[in-house]
């Protein structure tokens, strides 16, 4: 058990490329931290720096109370689950799990006890322990990779996109299992993914990264409801938030560049009059008005999800999606009027992308 602390961490490659630019955050003891961001944002590099597989160019990484910048991976008291599992192909499942313990000169009875406990937790039966990794399915390999991490009883689990090689259904199932497992073992975990859904569901603490920097840190719902930037707002949520460009005309009202106006809650946002803004609205916070003077919505396509409907169209020259629950009937007709409550509107600075 240990906390993980990153203090102004930089990673610059010999070629001069800086992958991580001054990242700081702290994962509390027993916390589940998810690093999320598009590919190339530096999240995997950061994880590998915590693991000790990449050197740290500047800043400090601490595990527990110890700065581990110069500590070898094996002495950091961590275990890592790799994207392609990285199981030793010539060893049986049992040996794969036991290998690390054997290297640490753990007595054989203790190894046997720990492996069988891990196997029990992960529902791997004795027959499977004797098999080679290539005789297992993707999901089973995934379990073995986690088993290899569990038997070590490390202070910190590191997950590097562990579910991205699985098919969609299995991914959901394993996601739930990882969460349950972490709750049960209460081991501090750092998890890297590019899948925002995975990130939202797993995290106690979400770190959204973009281009080597942290965009926002916080609880998943907090980030969802109060995104600190256009990037976070657009990254979290599926379908993503709709954005409309505009200008503050008077407190509580945005004049949209493409025509029309949008009311917002002036208690939450206080930009000066005349400010150039980007207004964001979550698709599920919008409905169609029966009548009235809402924004006009030019319908293009309806996607039927079963769980609801996604209605795609254009508003004031921008693409716009409305998510309707299943109980609603699909709108008919080419143009619709939108009903948007003022407190559903987020405002961002159009130049910096920061929340106003």
């Amino acid at each position, binding site marked *: 058990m240990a906390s993980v602390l990153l203090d102004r961490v930089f990673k610059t490659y010999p070629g001069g490329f800086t992958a991580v630019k001054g990242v700081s955050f702290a994962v509390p003891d027993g916390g589940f931290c998810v690093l999320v961001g598009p590919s190339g944002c530096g999240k995997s590099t950061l994880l590998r720096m915590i*693991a*000790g*597989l990449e050197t740290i160019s500047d800043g400090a990484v601490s595990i527990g109370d110890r700065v581990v910048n110069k500590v*070898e*991976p*094996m002495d950091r008291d*961590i*275990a*890592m689950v*790799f*994207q*392609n599992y*990285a*199981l*030793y*192909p*010539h*060893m049986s499942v049992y040996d794969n799990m036991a*290998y*690390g313990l054997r*290297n*640490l000169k753990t007595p054989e009875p203790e190894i046997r006890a720990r492996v069988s406990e891990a196997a029990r937790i992960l529902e791997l039966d004795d027959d499977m322990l004797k098999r080679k990794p290539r005789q297992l399915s993707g999901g089973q390999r995934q379990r073995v990779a986690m088993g*290899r991490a569990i038997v070590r009883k490390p202070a910190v689990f590191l997950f590097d996109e562990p579910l991205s090689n699985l098919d969609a259904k299995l991914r959901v199932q394993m996601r739930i299992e990882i969460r349950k497992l972490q709750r049960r073992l209460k081991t501090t975990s750092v998890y890297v993914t590019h899948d925002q859904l995975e990130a939202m569901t797993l995290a106690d603490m979400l770190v959204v990264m973009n281009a080597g920097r942290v965009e926002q840190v916080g609880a998943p719902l907090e980030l969802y409801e109060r995104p600190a930037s256009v990037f976070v707002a657009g990254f979290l949520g599926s379908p993503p938030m709709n954005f409309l460009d505009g200008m503050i005309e008077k407190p509580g009202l945005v004049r949209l560049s493409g025509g029309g106006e949008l009311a917002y809650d002036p208690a939450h946002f206080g930009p000066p009059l005349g400010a150039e803004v980007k207004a964001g609205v979550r698709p599920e916070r919008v409905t169609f008005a029966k009548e009235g003077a809402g924004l006009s919505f030019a319908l293009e396509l309806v996607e039927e999800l079963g769980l609801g409907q996604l209605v795609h169209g254009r508003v004031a020259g921008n693409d716009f999606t409305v998510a309707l629950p299943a109980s609603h009937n699909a709108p008919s007709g080419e143009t619709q009027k939108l009903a948007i409550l003022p407190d559903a509107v987020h405002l961002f600075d159009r130049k910096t992308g920061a929340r106003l």
Partner: protein
Amino acid sequence: MVENRPFGNILAHLVLIVGVLVIVFPVYMAFVASTWDPATIANGKLGLLPGPYLVENYSRILFEGTGRTTRAHVDTMLFNSFVSAMIIATGKIAISLISSYAIVYFRFPFRMVAFWLIFLTLMFPVEVRIYPTYKIVADLGLLDTYTGLSVPLIASATATLLFRQFFMTVPDELLEAAKIDAAGPLRFFKDVLLPLSRTNIAALFVILFIYGWNQYLWPLLITTRDDMQTVVIGIKKIVAVQDALTEWQLAMATAILAMLPPVLVVVVMQKLFVKGLVETEK
């Protein structure tokens, strides 16, 4: 084959059978010749069937000596060939495994220089550098020794390159997983890399054993004593006699015996050999 047409099958088999016959027939004739007396062979009366001298010829080369010029027994020669081929094959594999491990997994100064130096030796086979090599071996007093027979042939770029290519296909994550699993460089080499290279090692062993077994020029230079000769030279010496009838039956019998160990090695390791050349097991 995806298609399965009986006529195509028959045709394919016919072609294969003809091919096998072409290869096997000379070997069979060598065997037939090794079972006759010299007169029959010299008179050109050798038929297609084995003769009555099988036991006599083979026991003569094994226990009495190979002929008028050399007195060494074929079993001694076979032993010499076997020992030097084994040293060459295992030595080459051991050295190239270690050197390619260093080149692929370690960042040391002049790593690429080292790699290119090894690569360059491809252009200097024994035949090219035979005089300096002979001089060194002779000065070291290694003439007529197993060391002298095998060590100069061990340095090999081909095997190093092969292992380098293989190591580069091993996913980096395995190394990283091993690092986290508290395996140091030596343990990673022994526990992960070596078992993964098993089929490659087997394939290389077969090739190198035959390479060592078939050496002619180098053993010819380096051995002077009869009891250090290898079997390939033995055959040559039986054939090259002056002012006498060449004892072809003995030469053929020696050739047949000389063929057996490499054949055995291939047969025993065939499965691994093919796997090593074809399969990429990861």
